[in-house]
């Protein structure tokens, strides 16, 4: 009895987890102008139709532009945060230096600072620098005004913690005798790094890049304060939701994003499994 109750609880929990995602995805295929019941038949118009009022997502200029900006931002964030994350992993696993524990806590800290605060503090600092440069030299530093560059910096500031933790965990498992053997055989430092250590880290670096890409793609709180005229997808969707209300085209975008995430998740699982065997 107790056992069945427990199992039922687990099932209910997963129904709870899935319910809003199913609702968000399913209404993309309902042949209606609003994402509500009753079901009026299956359609792909909200993806591919090219005329109003049922303008599909692949013909909606603003959504496509948002998707493009999100992609650009997420790619930069993923590259930068994996690079710094890898450096951090070597720094904390391979080296000893004074106050190491303190610096390690500093590294983890960005993860527990609310995203809104990261956003406003970076915005305030960038504007401050841009204003004083403009006043003293008369140059307008466009780069430090809200826009893609600041969004990338803002997201990078906390996503780097995530990639550092992922790559550090992997580097800790590395058997250093493998490197020593290579040195004994006369290999140079650079060569050992390139042919032994980095290939060992590759699955974690790929997984870190995927997680960074997704977290960047989804981010809203930090981005909200740093965004300029090039709005990424989440901001565009939020705008649409507030101004137009819910329309099935948002369901179509949701479905598309869930599909993309599922694909990336699958890749990261495969990459990590590949390495275990």
């Amino acid at each position, binding site marked *: 009895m107790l056992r069945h109750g427990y199992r039922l609880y*687990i099932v209910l929990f*997963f129904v709870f*987890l*899935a*319910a*809003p*995602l199913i*609702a*968000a995805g399913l*209404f993309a295929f309902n042949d209606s102008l609003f994402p*509500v*019941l009753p079901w009026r038949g299956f359609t792909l118009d909200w993806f591919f139709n090219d005329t109003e009022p049922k303008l599909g997502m692949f013909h909606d200029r603003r959504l496509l532009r948002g998707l493009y900006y999100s992609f650009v931002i997420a790619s930069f964030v993923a590259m930068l945060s994996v690079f*710094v994350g890898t*450096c*951090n992993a*070597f*720094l904390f696993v391979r*080296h000893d*230096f004074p106050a190491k*524990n303190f*610096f*390690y*806590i*500093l*590294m983890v*800290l960005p*993860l*527990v*600072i*609310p*995203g*809104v*605060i990261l956003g*406003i*503090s*970076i915005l*305030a*600092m960038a504007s*401050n620098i841009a204003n004083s440069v403009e006043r003293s030299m008369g140059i307008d530093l466009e780069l430090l005004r809200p826009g893609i560059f600041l969004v990338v*910096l803002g997201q*990078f*500031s906390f996503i*780097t913690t995530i990639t550092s933790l992922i790559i550090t965990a992997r580097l800790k498992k590395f058997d250093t005798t493998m490197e020593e053997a290579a040195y004994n055989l006369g290999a140079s430092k650079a060569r050992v790094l390139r042919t032994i250590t980095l290939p060992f880290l590759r699955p974690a670096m790929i997984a870190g890049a995927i997680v960074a890409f997704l977290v960047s*793609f*989804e981010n*809203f*709180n930090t981005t*909200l*304060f740093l965004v300029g005229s090039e709005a990424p997808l*989440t901001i565009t969707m*939020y705008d649409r*939701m507030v101004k137009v209300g*819910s329309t099935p085209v948002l*369901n179509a975008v*949701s479905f598309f*994003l*869930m599909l993309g*995430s599922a694909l990336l*998740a699958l890749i990261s*699982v495969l990459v990590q499994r590949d390495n275990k065997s």
Partner: protein
Amino acid sequence: MAGSRAKDAKKLALILLFTPFALWITLLILLPHVGMMVLSLKEKVAPRVYEYGFDNYINFAQEPIYWNTLLRTGSVSLLVTLLALLIGFPVAYYIAKIAGNRTKGALFLLCLIPLWVSDLIRAFGWILLLRETGVISSALQASGLIDTPIEFLYNDATVIMGLVYTVVLFMIVPLVSTLDGMDNEMIEAGYNLGGNGFTVLRRIIIPYAMPGIVAGCIVVFMLSAGSYLTPILLGGKNSSWFTEQIYDQFISRYNWESGAAFGFVLLVFTSLVVWLGLKLSGQTLSSTVAKS
């Protein structure tokens, strides 16, 4: 000589590796926060003329709406943390200790699915389910249980449910990883010594899982107190969440000085709660969050 050269190389590597770390933490975390603190102590007395003082904080303290919102954000977040722990713990325990090896991985992945979907889409899904014309209301009408549509959105219970939904997996993940490391024999020994299920849970399992519980609670509390989308979309205009006040000061009123003060208040308040939680549970930041 060779030894000292190797030492020099090691030193050079340390400096090269430390540089990106130092640039990242100094330029994007420490300096902006110091800047925010300085900004929050400024006050505009005339166009382009500023004076330093605590006026922004005094304004905050004198306006009950502001600190009521802060207290509300804090207490609701604590409730969300507690609920996430109560709901998440059995799930984590099931995944770590009861499920077979094969289902274990699958269940763990299922838990992570919401993580791969943005906050916005999750909140959007809840809106479609819960609003007056939503799925649940129309299903209840169709089944004849109710006559008129019911609005499930825009109340505190829905906001709390939505927040628990968004954060619960950050509770489950650290719990699964600590419970995973626990030897099953410890639980068996507890039963053999005559303990019942409740004593074993209280005396053996919970103390063992404490680092995971604390880590989960810290992350969940911070995420909840810092969240913006879920309270606004599910709670409506009057959700009175503190991040909304910060946005209001910064973007709508363009009063950056006061917005920075609000941001700082939120940061200090949440850090204090986390510090208190660590003290009460006898854990440290490095034994919990930094470990996972």
